[in-house]
Every structure is written in C-alpha cells, then in structure tokens.
C-alpha cells in the first residue's frame, strides 16, 4: 500500500538531491527522473485501484481535518492522478533522447517539481495548500518556459510570469476573503459553512477565483500568455503545459466552484459563456496561424474553452462529457505536441510551409499526428468522437440551441485548419524515408493506442467518469468524507 502523499514528497526529496546525482554522473539525472516519475505512476495506479472501493483521506501532522492539512482522493482525484502520472511518465521516456540545453540537471529538477506541484493541486483538500501548489506548478513552469534563454522563450516566460502571478495573488485574495468569513481553510469545512456567507461575499470570492484560476485554465481574457509560452518552450514542456498544467488549473477551478462555493446558477452561466467565448476566439485565431505549434496552442485554448463550457452546463451528463473531453484532450494534445517535436528535429522551424511533405518523410509520425488530430476533431471510432457526441447531446438535452450552434461552428473551423495541416503534410515530392528512433515514438504510440482503444470501447471509462461527475455534484458527500470521520 502506497500512501498517495508519497507521490508529492518523494519528487520533492529527489529534486533536492538532484545536484548530487548530477555531480556523480551527468547521465544519471534523466534516469533518476524517469525512476521517480515511474514511482509516481505506480503510486497513482495503486491509488486509483483503492479509490474504486472508497475515497481516501490522508491527514498530515497526525491531526484530524479541518485542523491540519489533508489530502482527499475521491473518484475524480483518482482519475486525474492516474492520467497525470501516466502522461508524465510517457514524457519522461520521451525526454530520454531529447536535446536539452545546459544546465541539464536544473531542467529535470524543474520538471520534477512541476509534476509534483500538479499532483499536489489535484490531491489537496485545503484551499491555501492549493495556492502553494499552484505557485510551485507556476514558478517551475515559468522557469521551464524560459529555459532556452532565447528571445521566444524569454518572452513567453515573462508573459506567463506576469499573468500567472497576478492570477495567483488574486486567488490568494479570494482565499483571504473566504477565511475572514468562515474562519477555516479546509475545502470541505468551508463548503459546510458556505451558508454563512452573504451573497455579495460569495460573488466577490467567485470572481477572484475565476480570474485567478482562469490564468492556468486558459480562459479568455487571462490566456494572453498561452500562445507565446507554448511556442517559446521546449517541446516536451509545451506538451506538459497543454495537457497536465491546464487540467490542473481546470480541476482547481471546478473544485472551487462546484464543491467549495456551491454551484450557483449565475456562476455556471458565467463559466458557460466564458468557455464559449474562449472557444470561438481561440479557434478563429488558430485559423490565421502559420506556425503549426502556435496553431495547436490556440487549439488547446479552444479545447479548454469547450471543456469549461461543458462544466458550465452543470448537469450530471454534461459533467461526464466534460471530463471525457478533458481526458481526450490530454491524449490528443500529447500526441500532437510530441509528434510535432519529432518533426521539428527534421526541419528548420515549425512554419506550415517548412513541414510540407513531412508525412512522407516520417510516415509513422505523420500517421500518429493525423490520428491525434482526427480524434480531436471527433472522427467516428476514435476516442474524441464519443466525448464530443456526448457533449453535443448534453447541450441539446438542456435545450441550449445557441451555444450548440456556436460549438458546431467552432468544430467546423477546427476541422478546417487541422485537415489543411494534414493535407500539407502529405503533399510534396519528398520521399526520403527517415523515421526517428523507436524510443521517441514509443510514448506517442502508447497515447495513440489508448485513443484507439477508447474509440472502440468507450464504455470502459464510463463508470469512472460517472463516479467523478457524481463527486462534483454531491457536495454533502464530499463534506462527509472529510469532516464526517472517514477513517484515514
């Protein structure tokens, strides 16, 4: 039995010791990194299996909540935990062969702490602890984005830093406001006392949380940093930002809205429209991009908007669809950014024109990229199809016709530019076959395999998604797990 808290503290301890490993052997660093992430993945699997029979409460300092910080892993936390560590593990394999600028050990330290921070964000049951992990994740991400120390990296990094710090400070102000009213910081305890708050206070806190966490969750207009940071960062870092970090921010946002501050109608409507506007603006911007990495960055923002929109609908079915869409987004964007990284090694720059004919030169990578993109578009019998169709169905179910039309419009735009990109990949007369090393293809292959598997058997995921959605809707259940003496 592995305590889930180890998945946070072991990476911290190893990151502190990383300079020693680097001094012993410069090569050992990435293997140590891989080993720690593998341990985290193992812990995630064990936790996921344990959560099936009931939520896990982990207390710290030997004192019961709400008096000390606790971790709570319910169905939602377990699912995301498994997803995050699994994806991070694949990235760690991918990084084995990657070219990284000196000082290499600092890159891996930052990456390790980034994974630990994202893990902490989804496991913690304390609002201020969430802020601390938000900062750990954020600061390591600023460092990683600027790591190349070239013009693009620095520009992306500094924009992310400015918006990210403004966001987290606003979040802290929201936490302070809540604390002044309820006198506690434990999420479940606050949720149980939220009736003490007058309406204006609740709204003020919500606005601060929405703006503060919207930076990480990539909501308009706090997402100005996204394209620059994504384009400037190292490829694997971009994949990490797009898959794990954005989902961690999203998790924090929905946890705060759904569990801590009861889901008021006004809050959900605001989420819904914020998501829709983000979706449309991002897809329209993506259409105009010439750089493929930047285009996928905008598409990533659009997908986040779509997921937030689905959460804003608030029905159980919509929540399931939103979670499924989030899972698919992680899988597809992982495939897209990693295969793009492989392509980038062959050509100078990632402008669309430079990548002409790359699908013939790298047939496997090109195919994997296409599958990832098509799943994102919702081609039947790929994983993305099922999430998109259930998302549209739940929109229709609630009779939200205008949003439904807008989502369809955005999907058409998205299909247009992705198909255009794939088309360019397969035109041209260049037939030199030069596939990359297998070890670099392996993570992408695994992700594509999951996409195909879920495409043929979407039912596999359904019970977990249902449990996770229920956790979000059932506030009193969550409060009971923490306060009502679930045995630690």
């Amino acid at each position, binding site marked *: 039995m592995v305590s889930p808290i180890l998945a946070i503290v072991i990476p911290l301890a190893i990151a502190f010791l990383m300079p020693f490993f680097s001094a012993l052997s410069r090569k050992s660093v990435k293997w140590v990194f891989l080993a720690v992430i593998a341990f985290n993945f193992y812990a995630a699997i064990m936790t996921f299996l344990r959560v099936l029979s009931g939520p896990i409460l982990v207390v710290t300092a030997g004192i019961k909540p709400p008096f000390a910080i606790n971790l709570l892993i319910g169905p939602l936390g377990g699912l995301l935990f498994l997803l995050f560590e699994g994806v991070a593990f694949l990235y760690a394999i991918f990084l084995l062969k990657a070219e990284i600028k000196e000082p290499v050990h600092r890159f891996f330290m930052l990456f390790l702490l980034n994974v630990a921070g994202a893990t902490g964000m989804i496991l913690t049951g304390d609002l201020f602890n969430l802020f601390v992990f938000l900062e750990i994740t954020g600061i390591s991400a*600023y460092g990683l984005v*600027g790591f190349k120390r070239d013009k693009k990296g*620095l520009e992306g990094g*500094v924009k992310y*830093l*400015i918006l990210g710090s*403004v966001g987290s400070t606003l979040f802290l102000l929201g936490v302070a406001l809540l*604390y002044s009213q309820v006198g506690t910081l434990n999420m479940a305890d606050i949720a149980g006392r939220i009736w003490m708050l007058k309406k204006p206070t609740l709204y003020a806190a919500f606005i601060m949380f929405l703006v503060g966490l919207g930076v990480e969750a990539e909501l308009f207009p706090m997402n100005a940093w996204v394209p620059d940071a994504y384009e400037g960062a190292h490829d694997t870092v971009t994949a990490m930002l797009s898959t794990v970090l954005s989902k961690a921010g999203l998790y924090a946002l929905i946890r705060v809205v759904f569990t801590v501050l009861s889901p008021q109608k006004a809050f959900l409507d605001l989420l819904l429209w914020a998501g829709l506007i983000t979706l449309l603006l991002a897809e329209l911007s993506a259409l105009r991009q010439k750089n493929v990495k*930047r285009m996928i960055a905008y598409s990533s923002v659009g997908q986040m908007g779509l997921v937030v929109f689905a959460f804003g609908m608030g029905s159980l079915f919509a929540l399931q669809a939103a979670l499924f869409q989030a899972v698919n987004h992680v899988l597809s964007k992982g495939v897209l950014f990693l295969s793009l990284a492989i392509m980038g090694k062959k050509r100078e720059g990632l402008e669309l024109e430079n990548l002409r004919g790359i699908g013939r030169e790298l047939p496997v990578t090109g195919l994997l990229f296409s599958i990832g993109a098509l799943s994102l578009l919702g081609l039947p019998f790929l994983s993305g199809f099922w999430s998109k169709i259930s998302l549209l169905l739940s929109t229709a179910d609630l009779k939200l016709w205008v949003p439904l039309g807008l989502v369809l419009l955005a999907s058409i735009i998205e299909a247009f530019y992705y198909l255009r990109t794939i088309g360019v990949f397969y035109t041209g007369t260049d037939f030199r076959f030069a596939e990359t090393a297998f070890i670099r293809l392996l993570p992408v292959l695994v992700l594509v395999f999951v996409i195909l598997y879920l495409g043929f058997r979407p039912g596999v995921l359904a019970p977990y998604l249902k449990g996770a959605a229920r956790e979000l809707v059932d506030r009193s259940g969550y409060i009971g797990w923490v306060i009502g003496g679930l045995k630690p």
Partner: protein
Amino acid sequence: MAENIIFYGSSIALAAIGLLIALTRRNLIKIIIGLDLMETGVNMFLISIGYRRGGTAPIFDIPLSKAVDPVPQALVLTAIVIGVAVTALALTFAVRIHEKYGTLDISKLREMKW
C-alpha cells in the same frame, strides 16, 4: 468604521493599484513593482482580518481573549516567501530580456505578437 477604511480599505486599494500597474505599464521593472505592491496589499489584508481588538501576538501564556488569530500570520509568512521567489525570478527574466532585446519595454517584445 474608520478602522475599516484604514486597514481593509488601504490594503485592498494597494492590491488594486498593484494590479493596475502590473497590467497597464510597459516597463518590466514597473510591472514587477506592481506585482510586489499587489502581494503586499493582500498580505496586509490577511494580517488585518486576523486582528482582534486589544489583542497581542499569540506567544506565551496570554489569556485567550488577548491573542490575535495565528492562522493569517502563518499564511502571510508563506505568502511573503512565495512573493520573494517570484520577484527574484521576475528580475532574472528582466536581466535576460534586457540582454536579448536591449529594452525593458514589454510592448517592444515583438518576436511573437500578443
């Protein structure tokens, strides 16, 4: 009421001024100063919500009614350290950007458009 204005009002206003500076100025150093002001404002707010009239620091065997709330003080300790970390990193970015671009004006960072 006067106390409310002095403590809550000034700390929230300080945070708002910091936010305004951070989002509207163009000079990177001024932006960093704005971020710091914002953090200071939030920290002051945290300290003032924990204050109890006539209270003192929660150290020694003082009567319970005399102690201020210890939790906000602990939170501020954490927040200050985090603020220092962010500021140090931001200044490093500023140094590097000045080296690469020869300016600290972020509107001139036109390698990629906003």
